[in-house]
């Protein structure tokens, strides 16, 4: 493949040998591979998204029965834009439209954890089976968390507000406008994510080339490894695409798959900066319950996969 040849050419030019050669090759190759896939998928999905403005989705969700609502909210979480800065206005719009609380929380949990770019990049890096496991368990965790938080009656901890009307008439955009919108969005997303990918693949490359296998198998396996991985993963903020190569390298060094998945999910789903934004729209009781519920779900999934796989 062209990218592979390019990476080989780079390490040849630099005259690298041994572990350093392998690490740099991994870094160049994986960064290029991820970025190439990203550019395509982000543009295509951005274009398709112009057909489903959030207002339309909200109105559609509002009329659905509970179980359908939960499933749709999880799916919507997958295709919604990346950043929690765009997830939260959508979340508030749903709350304001009277969509049941549990359903809105499901959306909030799934949105950062799974997105279309991760779904395209993951199979190429960690394989189809792990991608499927990641997606299905992410949806399950999101739906369960929404359901549990709803049953616990935590709705009262969302701050009071009246959702207004923007009064903007949206004309049906032309293909040209859709394409332009998608390319602006793609450019923003790629430049936002790129640093995380470069650093993530860099860390992955270091693990790949220099961390001895025994270190991983001795200290990071076992049930405590899952709890530890989630405890470390929750406060960390990085894009899911930055953490994929790290986990891939760790699994390559013998990290149990469930522990790897749990780490990836906890990094993506929960983070300190996200809590700071959430604090503006809900009380800390709800943020804490949300974090604990989702983290517990992730630990259970991690333990389960370690046991079964």
């Amino acid at each position: 493949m062209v990218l592979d040849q390019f990476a080989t050419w780079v390490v040849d030019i630099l005259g690298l040998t041994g572990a350093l050669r392998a690490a740099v090759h991994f870094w160049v190759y994986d960064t290029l591979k991820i970025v190439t896939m990203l550019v395509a998928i982000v543009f295509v999905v951005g274009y398709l998204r112009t057909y489903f403005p959030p207002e339309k989705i909200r109105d559609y969700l509002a009329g659905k029965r509970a179980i359908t609502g939960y499933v749709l909210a999880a799916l919507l979480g997958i295709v919604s834009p990346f950043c929690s800065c765009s997830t939260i206005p959508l979340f508030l719009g749903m709350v304001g439209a009277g969509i049941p609380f549990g359903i809105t929380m499901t959306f909030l949990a799934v949105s950062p954890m799974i997105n279309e770019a991760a779904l395209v990049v993951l199979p190429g890096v960690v394989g189809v089976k792990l991608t499927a496991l990641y997606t299905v368990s992410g949806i399950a965790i999101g739906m369960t968390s929404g359901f549990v938080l709803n049953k616990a009656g935590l709705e009262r901890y969302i701050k009071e507000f009246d959702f207004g009307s923007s009064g903007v008439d949206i004309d049906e955009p032309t293909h040209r406008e859709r394409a332009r919108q998608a390319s602006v969005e793609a450019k923003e997303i790629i430049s936002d994510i790129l640093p995380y990918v470069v650093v993530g693949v860099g860390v992955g490359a270091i693990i790949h080339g220099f961390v001895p296998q025994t270190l991983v198998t001795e200290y990071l396996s076992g049930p405590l490894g899952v709890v530890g991985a989630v405890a470390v993963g929750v406060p960390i903020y990085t894009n899911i695409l930055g953490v994929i190569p790290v986990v891939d390298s760790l699994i390559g060094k013998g990290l149990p798959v469930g522990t790897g998945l749990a780490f990836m999910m906890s990094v993506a789903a929960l983070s300190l900066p996200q809590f700071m934004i959430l604090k503006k729209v809900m009380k800390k009781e709800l943020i804490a319950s949300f974090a604990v519920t989702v983290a517990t779900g992730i630990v259970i999934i991690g333990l389960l996969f370690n046991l079964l796989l």
Partner: protein
Amino acid sequence: MKITIYGPDGCSNCSTLEDKTQNVVDEHGFDAEVEKEGDPMKLAEKGIMSTPGFEIDGEMVFNGSNPSEAELKAYIEERL
């Protein structure tokens, strides 16, 4: 006139729109003040579900898109 860009912190698309708007205002010498509102609750009150929102003197002109500087100029000129 007062131009308000609605976009939460960390939304780079919104900061881009703010910069572009400021450029247009500076370049054409419009008598306008550009400010950014980051509080998600304020966005909700304005009915914005897709960011950024672009408001001139209390009128929401568009939201959820990021037009070119030429279009921004036209929006501002229409409302001078």
